[in-house]
């Protein structure tokens, strides 16, 4: 038997609206057992939030997105975490990651316009202590987010009855 927690998370990752009762049926467990485990996962911070996967482009939300890469110089009392955590506090910033390669930190940012985003980066990020350089890439189109393909596809048809 696989770990109950993992099984529950797999179902919830796919559908945040799945109720403990529904999950219990799918996993062949009791509702109480599943509800208790979900509570534990919420309490311990494994489950952070229940979200909806939205294709904003479909309703022309008017937002502009950019991926920003940073080079950072470290000092004895300021490591990556300190800078990354600081960047994370801005509500404009949607995700922050420490990465390998040419840059050190990559984050995504959402703004009302390109200018809006550009000024956010120059005003708030470039000026942070330890930030050596920034490289901003504006997002032109999203094809896949959170494992979900966003473009429309015709799905092939199966025969209705087969052996």
């Amino acid at each position, binding site marked *: 038997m696989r770990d109950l927690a993992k099984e529950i998370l797999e179902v919830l990752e796919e559908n945040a609206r799945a109720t403990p009762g529904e999950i219990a049926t*799918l996993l062949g467990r009791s509702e109480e057992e599943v509800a208790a485990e979900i509570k534990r996962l919420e309490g311990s911070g494994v489950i952070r939030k229940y979200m909806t996967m939205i294709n904003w482009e479909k309703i022309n939300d008017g937002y502009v997105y950019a991926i920003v890469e940073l080079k950072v110089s470290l000092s004895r009392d300021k490591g990556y975490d300190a800078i990354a955590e600081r960047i994370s506090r801005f509500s404009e910033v949607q995700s922050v990651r420490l990465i390998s390669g040419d840059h050190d930190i990559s984050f995504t940012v959402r703004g009302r316009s390109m200018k809006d985003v550009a000024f956010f980066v120059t005003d708030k990020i470039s000026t942070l202590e330890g930030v050596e350089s920034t490289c901003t890439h504006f997002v032109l189109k999203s094809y896949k987010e959170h494992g979900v393909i966003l473009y429309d596809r015709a799905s092939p048809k199966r025969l*209705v009855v*087969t052996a």
Partner: protein
Amino acid sequence: MTRGEIGLSGKKLAMERPSLWRPESHLSATVRDMPPSGIRKFFDIVVGMEGVISLGVGEPDFPTPWHIREACIYSLEGGHTSYTSNKGLPELREILAEAKKEDLKLEYDPEEEILITTGVSEAVDLAFRATLNPGDEVIVPQPCYVAYVPDIRLAGGVPRPVATRLSEEFKLRPEDFEGAISEKTKALVLSYPNNPTGAIMTREDLEEIADLVVENDLLVISDEVYEKLTYDGKHASFAQLEGMRERTVLLNGMSKSCAMTGWRIGYALGDPAIIGAMTKVHQYTMLCAPTMAQVAAVEALRRGDAEVKAMKREYDRRRRLFVSELKRLGLPCFEPKGAFYAFPSIEGTGLSSEEFAEELLKEQKVAAVPGNAFGDSGEGFIRCSYATSREEILEAVDRIERFLADLGT
């Protein structure tokens, strides 16, 4: 006489030849007398209907994982479009040998004991044709996949159906098996995990019939295409039993576990004498399995494990969902342990399997397959495939509930 009349009379002459041509009289008696598959009959009713939810499909609803499709495209781009060896790509046979060693602890020589076929269907046909003489009897536990009985007849053999029962979890029991054995019995077909019942046979269940197999010197043709979709414990193969490897032709394929039905890749594993005989028939009929599909199968076996497991987990969830919903509706259903079918009893409705399936389709647009399509002992049941999305399963259950309410049962 004008030229035109000459032309006309020339045509007339041809038409006046006595016409004795009746194509029916040129059919093989075996084929003429063969009933069309019950599934086919039902398919004809469904065609053209809109808004049907299908529980009638015997294949995964997932497309083949992309990396497998991509490997095939890449090989096509590279121009790998010629025949392979009759036995199949050496690489595929080698990788299969490794996989079986790991999964079943069984060793097969890729040169002599493995044959790649065009789907398991071909392997089933080859196994009968390579082993049966006219009049040889083959025991077929039913309900079962629709092809065994006609394939046995095509090979000149005589099928001996044995009914398995709901009360015995649709397993082949020694007493039923023994009752069907005669002096002419040559082989036994095993197909577990089973289509349409979802039954499995554990190692202990198989042990119980092994003595009869040896005493009566039988060959076992074991179709294990649903091997990877075993939800209760680990799959057991008859070939794993002490001394049974040589007596067993193990058939399996890529279709169900890797969502590769349309690729048509199956395989047969067994004693060199039998695999060699099957290869002879294969070489004169099929030549080799499709090359590009064999390349895809290599990729699937090499890197497809995570997807196979993920798909199995999802089927398992749907199985639990569907079975619990059927219970809620009050349809008695054996809890399937493998494959992706539930086989609820509809006897309580007073309808026959065909009536139930036809009415359900007409009234509520849910397609399921009448159980008698899988043998007489399937009467009183319908086969519902849960290889469809959870949303569709729940919608189908709602419709079945309405259908049952309208029946007043």
